[in-house]
């Protein structure tokens, strides 16, 4: 249902108006006199490259940050929430990109935890079922959250918001962890909500999704509103250009011939360290020099475990992983870096990077060995700083400088830093998990281009991703990871969607697709 939504006169029905909102952080003006408004029943997109200030703006609307200047009006009344509680009381709800759920509690218990006055469990469970049926969000109240997929977790967050009957629902990058089928379900729900008069403020880097979903788009560039348009009247390329203020080039492939086998994985089995994780079962594949192997599949099917086994964080049988014939399975992360097998995990805060450490220290974290940042145990901080600066420059990381803590960067910018840090170390094998997660279109293109260039220079690259378009764009061969098993890799060229669906093992997705109808 992509039909024409009648355009509303927004002056009449403006639900929230924001005028001159300004917020500065040390070294950056994250929001600079931002004006915008959103009407009842409108699905409004907030676009902008990484670090443009989208999250900052919604945090102020939700009371999580206080503006330095400017004012907000909600339904004609001045609106200045002192905290999220006040925002919720005014009918504003926010679904974060990062979920705040407890794995060991059930869906209903998690929802009760977020409520000011939770009703008795029985009534709450009934309400959850009711709301989940009304909005087509399948969810069982008594299941443990730890066993849920990313899409299902997000439904928990959404239902938690819907139970409060919000007038304005804000979603910060909701689809970056969802499968296409889960996205379809989400969009159906959002359209239904909008038809009932709920305003939806929607942040995403996926421009095609925005074109199909949103009525209006406000575009931020470096903290300022630069444009407001109807995304349906623009192409994705137009939108991306408005965001960056420059033309976008699609990644180009050199198309060289792959060389000999560099990395060989055979019969790799690994019990998951996490009680809710997925164990790897008899995974085998090989990657050649100059080749990109794309590994698709829904997150939570063994992706994290596969990355741990390849980065050396999880020890496996020595012969299960071989580099040019040499067994390296038993080597830890340090020795693997020494032989030029590098990795970039998915979770950037707390795994790929230490949140409270500076970028210089985070450069030291993985580059000490290969960049010679340590001599006989003593650290060369000036060299580490120089390396961090090189990463920042080469990957266009927006930050005041390498002395800033990793957690002060916007999500996409930290992702660029994490990928750039490994790419610049000239790996022989590079494994990346969700390399463009939360990264804007132009930066995603830059990261993909960097991976292609790296392959062209002879590196064997393994890209683990949920984003099938991304994998089709850059991989030479494609394999699917499902419940800890890897399908045999096939050449990516000429693979049809049906074939990919079959490789992905179907069952789980079919069920979801069926519900979506």
């Amino acid at each position, binding site marked *: 249902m992509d039909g024409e939504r009648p355009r509303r006169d927004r002056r009449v029905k403006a639900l929230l108006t924001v005028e001159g909102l300004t917020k500065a952080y040390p070294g950056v003006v994250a929001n600079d006199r931002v004006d915008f408004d959103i009407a009842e029943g409108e699905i409004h997109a907030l676009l902008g490259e990484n670090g443009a200030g989208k999250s900052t703006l919604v945090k102020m609307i939700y009371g999580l940050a206080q503006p330095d200047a400017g004012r907000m009006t909600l339904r004609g009344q001045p609106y200045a929430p002192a905290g999220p509680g006040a925002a919720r009381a005014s009918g504003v709800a926010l679904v974060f990109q990062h979920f705040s759920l407890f794995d060991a509690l059930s869906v209903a218990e998690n929802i009760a935890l977020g409520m000011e006055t939770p009703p008795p469990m029985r009534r709450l469970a009934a309400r959850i079922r009711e709301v989940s049926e009304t909005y087509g969000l399948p969810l069982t109240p008594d299941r443990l959250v730890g066993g849920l997929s990313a899409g299902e977790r997000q439904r928990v967050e959404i239902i938690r918001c819907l139970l409060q009957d919000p007038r304005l629902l804000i979603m910060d990058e909701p689809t970056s962890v969802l499968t296409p089928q889960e996205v379809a379900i989400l969009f159906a729900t959002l359209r239904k909500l909008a038809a009932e008069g709920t305003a939806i403020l929607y942040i995403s880097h996926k421009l095609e999704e925005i074109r199909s979903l949103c009525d209006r788009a406000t575009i931020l560039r470096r903290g300022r509103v630069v444009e407001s348009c109807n995304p349906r009247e623009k192409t994705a390329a137009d939108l991306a250009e408005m965001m960056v203020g420059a033309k976008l080039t699609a990644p180009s492939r050199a198309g060289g011939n792959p060389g000999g086998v560099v990395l060989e994985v055979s019969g790799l089995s690994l019990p998951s360290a996490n009680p809710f994780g997925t164990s790897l079962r008899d995974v085998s594949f090989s990657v050649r020099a100059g080749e990109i192997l794309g590994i698709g599949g829904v997150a939570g099917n063994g992706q994290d475990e596969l990355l741990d086994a390849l980065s050396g964080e999880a020890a496996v049988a020595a012969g299960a992983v071989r580099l040019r014939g040499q067994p390296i399975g038993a080597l830890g992360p340090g020795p693997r870096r020494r032989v030029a097998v590098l990795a970039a995990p998915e979770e950037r805060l707390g795994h790929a990077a230490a949140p409270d450490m500076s970028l210089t220290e985070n450069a030291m974290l993985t580059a000490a060995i290969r960049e010679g940042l340590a001599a006989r*145990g003593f*650290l060369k901080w000036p060299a580490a700083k120089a390396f961090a600066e090189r990463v920042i420059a080469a990957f266009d990381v927006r930050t005041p400088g390498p002395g800033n803590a990793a957690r002060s960067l916007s999500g996409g910018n930290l992702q660029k830093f994490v990928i750039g840090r490994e790419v610049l170390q000239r790996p022989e094998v590079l494994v990346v998990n969700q390399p463009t997660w939360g990264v804007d279109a132009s930066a995603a293109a830059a990261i993909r281009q960097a991976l292609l260039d790296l392959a062209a220079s002879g590196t064997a690259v393994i890209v683990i991703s949920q984003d099938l378009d991304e994998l089709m764009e850059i991989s030479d061969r494609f394999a699917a990871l499902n419940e800890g098993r890897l399908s045999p890799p096939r050449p990516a060229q000429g693979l049809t969607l049906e074939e990919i669906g079959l490789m992905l093992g179907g069952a789980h997705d079919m069920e979801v697709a069926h519900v979506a109808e």
Partner: protein
Amino acid sequence: MIRLEKRPQPSRAWTVATPLLAVALTMVAGGLMFALLGKDPVVAIRTIFWDPLFHEQFASYSRPQLLVKAGPLILIATGLSLGFRAGIWNIGAEGQYIMGALAGAGVALALYPLDAWFLFPLMVLAGALGGWAWAMIPAILKTRFRTNEILVSLLLVYVAEQVLASMALGLMKNPEGGGFPGSRNLQHYPAAANTELIAGTGMHWGVAAAFIAVIAAYVLLTRHILGFQIRLAGQSPRAARFAGVNPNALVVICLGLSGALAGLAGMFEVAGPAGRVNIGFNQGYGFTAIIVAFLGRLHPVGILLAGLLMALTYIGGELAQFMLGIPSAAIQAFQGMLLFFLLGVDVLSNYRIRLGRRRIA
């Protein structure tokens, strides 16, 4: 309404200011407590913080005591802080201190009356080894069987106290002591004595070792890969694994280092200020050092200052007991307040306080 807002980066200024604020708050609350006990709070605070250093009558006695008391505190706290930074909680420094003293004194007593230049260095080595070995028990149990190092190291303190008592009454008892418990006095055994290096200052080898430890810890934490790994493991264990840190190795290294330094402190104490192995030889330095480590923000220079401050409250506390008749429990409560306020105001370096809703311009 008061709200806390997380700072994007820990505030440098507050990191330095919070210990000072904690000291100030302790003076206020402590003064209140002394007033309730019927003592003049101003006099009491002055007796604790000022008189030990500047009182015309007592200062000549109490000033050297400052270094004598601060030395072991600083030495032990420096070792503990390394583990604390990595999230490895050695609570049993008191036991390691005892075992270091027993090992060091044991060497001297076994070789008595040998007069050789190498005796004292040998005792130093034995002291460090004694503390290290005692700390290896929780380390090995933790890495092998996942036991909790907090409990194991703490309970081993009580075991060490029993060993100390049995040594003082048995194996190490002074054969010429007329049957009284306690060993020979090592201060009267020149080859083994840890004497004052500069007369009248209280400066002995243990204090020198404490200063060296502070410098070494500073270099380790800021310039060495091990220090980097320690900080990383404490802040972000998953990222530490990704960086190649072996958590088990870190447990063994951190517990071993802190145990060895505590053992050294015990050895210097038994060969110097205390003089002999005896029941009750340990005076709680190992526990107080935990407070010192946190008061010093787990930073070597901070620990140096905190150790001196803590020593001052000890000496001043004794003075206040003696001169004003303040009960010793009140002095201990006063020292406890220091830690309480420190941890309480700690939140300011990571959060900022917002009063009410910010007016929007």
